[in-house]
């Protein structure tokens, strides 16, 4: 690398900490100018700063490769200061291999053998490669398969590109280097941003920072249609519908309009006991409601009609159910008087059942979105992972009782709520160890079933209800909540985050209401909002 008088008169180090070498900085600017197509600007920058994009060895090597002077190439490479032995060997190997192929291609077999003996073997590379080269002497057609076809010029150009990959990076600036450095910085800012929820345009002019208002923070609607405690809410997978179930023995389907208002659609009546759980089919056309101590019912969402009732001749209670990804089969777990796990189709016919002494009592069930893993909460303290239908099993013991289970949308993680007022996050994999990936604390839970959910863009947040009538939101990396939402007057049983609209959250509470919470600002935050927050 040469530095001329022009650059010595300027600073030789840039940046507030003096980490950046000016010559290297100018070189990557020149390189990105060339790659953007501004050749005149790039060459005038080269002459003005006196820094050349390509080092002298680079030009010499290019000339030697293109003209086929192989010995000169090798001596140029040997003259590169600071090159380590393995790169030297690799580079020499590449050069001699090209020479070898060219000799074979032009039919000079004896010189080719000489090259193989005298130059390639002493290098000490992997002997399989050397043997394969020897094979090409015998079998000429095999050369075509290695991809070393094309004209001599093309092959030499590709040899040169391979060489610069092997040699130290200062010989030739790696392409796209400046873009890569900027991208790394932006990604780092984005990942350390605490409230990053809404996909925002990344701007290079200022550091990326999200305001707390970007996660749902204000209550925009209070839905009063239920006549008793609301125990469960869930958005559909496409985010267009919301279903809520209550101890007044009904479930209500709401539509989420384009302007983010939630409108009453239909009430599903027919159960005689409080409905404790409901589940959307993966294609969002059907809904299953499970009630406490009674049968489960299957409803069609569009027409809100009852399609089927899953009843059991032995009058077992179906405690929870999960859909298979194909939306045509359901996995159910039931108990009392004996424990049973069974799959059934949409008409209620039982397809497969597992029952007997070994089957534990499962209180919560879920299937991963790709249909391969089943996860269940057994006997309150054990998490059971199983590859479906036959496969590896994994049992994880928790210290305290587990009240509920929730999967992330990508099927990679799950969270369980414990009676000890903790939420544990784990990876959804049969091969993992027993350790917890993350723990979230701060909410209150002791007597009741409190449900939590993943949410936000990229599922980077966890939200949970609580017995102190507040909603707690955590960032996945951090144990304490980043936001607490107040508004309900009694315990919040369940929360659900809209998968399609990361600025919308819904919560169900014993005070008979479902509340919709919205992020304080629109998906395009403006400067004005920032100023109003400060003032």
């Amino acid at each position, binding site marked *: 690398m040469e530095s001329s008088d022009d650059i010595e008169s300027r600073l030789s180090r840039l940046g507030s900490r003096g980490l950046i070498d000016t010559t290297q900085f100018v070189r990557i600017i020149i390189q990105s100018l060339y790659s953007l197509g501004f050749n005149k600007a790039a060459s005038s920058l080269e002459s003005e700063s006196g820094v050349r994009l390509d080092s002298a060895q680079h030009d010499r090597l290019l000339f030697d490769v293109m003209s086929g002077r192989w010995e000169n190439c090798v001596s140029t490479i040997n003259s590169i200061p600071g090159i380590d032995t393995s790169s030297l060997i690799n580079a020499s190997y590449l050069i001699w291999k090209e020479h070898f192929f060219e000799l074979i291609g032009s039919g000079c077999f004896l010189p080719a053998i000489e090259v193989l003996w005298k130059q390639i073997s002493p290098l000490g590379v992997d002997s399989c490669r050397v043997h394969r080269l020897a094979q090409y002497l015998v079998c000429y057609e095999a050369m075509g398969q290695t991809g070393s076809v094309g004209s001599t010029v093309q092959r030499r150009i590709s040899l040169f590109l391979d060489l610069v990959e092997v040699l130290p990076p200062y010989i030739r600036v790696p392409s796209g280097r400046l873009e890569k450095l900027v991208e790394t910085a932006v990604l780092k800012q984005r990942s350390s941003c605490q409230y990053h929820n809404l996909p925002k345009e990344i701007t290079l002019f200022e550091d990326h920072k999200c305001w707390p208002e970007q996660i749902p923070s204000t209550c925009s609607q209070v839905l009063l249609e239920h006549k008793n405690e609301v125990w469960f809410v869930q958005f559909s997978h496409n985010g267009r519908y919301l279903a809520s179930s209550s101890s007044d023995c009904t479930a209500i389907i709401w539509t989420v309009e384009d302007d983010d208002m939630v409108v009453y659609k239909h009430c599903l009546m027919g159960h005689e006991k409080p409905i404790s759980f409901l589940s959307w089919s993966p294609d969002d056309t059907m809904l299953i409601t499970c009630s406490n101590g009674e049968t489960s019912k299957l409803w069609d969402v569009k027409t809100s009609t009852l399609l089927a009732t899953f009843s059991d001749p032995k009058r077992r209670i179906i405690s929870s159910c999960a859909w298979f990804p194909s939306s045509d089969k359901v996995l159910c777990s039931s108990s009392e008087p004996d424990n049973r796990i069974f799959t059934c189709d949409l008409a209620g016919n039982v397809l497969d059942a597992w029952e007997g002494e070994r089957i534990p009592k499962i209180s919560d069930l879920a299937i991963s979105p790709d249909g391969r893993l089943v996860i269940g909460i057994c006997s309150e303290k054990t998490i059971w992972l199983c590859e479906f239908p036959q496969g590896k099993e994994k049992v994880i013991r928790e210290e305290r009782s587990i009240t509920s289970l929730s999967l992330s949308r990508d099927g990679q993680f799950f969270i369980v709520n414990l009676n000890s007022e903790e939420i544990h996050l784990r990876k959804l994999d049969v091969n993992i160890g027993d350790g917890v990936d993350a723990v979230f604390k701060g909410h209150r839970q002791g007597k009741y079933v409190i449900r939590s959910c993943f949410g936000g863009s990229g599922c980077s947040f966890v939200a949970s209800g609580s017995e102190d009538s507040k909603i707690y939101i955590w960032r996945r990396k951090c144990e304490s909540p980043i936001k607490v939402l107040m508004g309900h007057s009694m*315990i919040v049983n369940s929360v659900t985050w809209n998968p399609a609209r990361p600025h919308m959250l819904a919560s169900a509470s014993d005070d008979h209401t479902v509340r919709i919470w919205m992020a304080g600002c629109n998906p395009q935050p403006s400067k004005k909002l920032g100023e109003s927050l400060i003032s």
Partner: protein
Amino acid sequence: MGLLFLQSLPGPKVFKCRCCKVDSAPHDAIVSKNFSGRYGPAYLINRVVNITMGPSEDRHLMTGWHTVNDIFCSCCQQLLGWKYEKAYDDSQKYKEGRFVLEKARVMKIG
């Protein structure tokens, strides 16, 4: 009231609340059958489930001063007995952390 989280006991013999039939205690957690509670004979038990505790009180029982918490079934709020929090007599120290379950308020299953 929300959806109550009810634990179920696996063992063959359990005690259930007489009113609402939720599991209260496993039979093998009994320490002594010779206790007497407010409503008659009672058991001293190591472990109970599905209960809520009342506030701490100082009470003078047959065996001396104790600090106790009343325990109620979390489902129907029936008074089931009490928990010994602190005993002021050295001979009564073994009771600390254990529960008294009134026979009249539970029924044995199995």
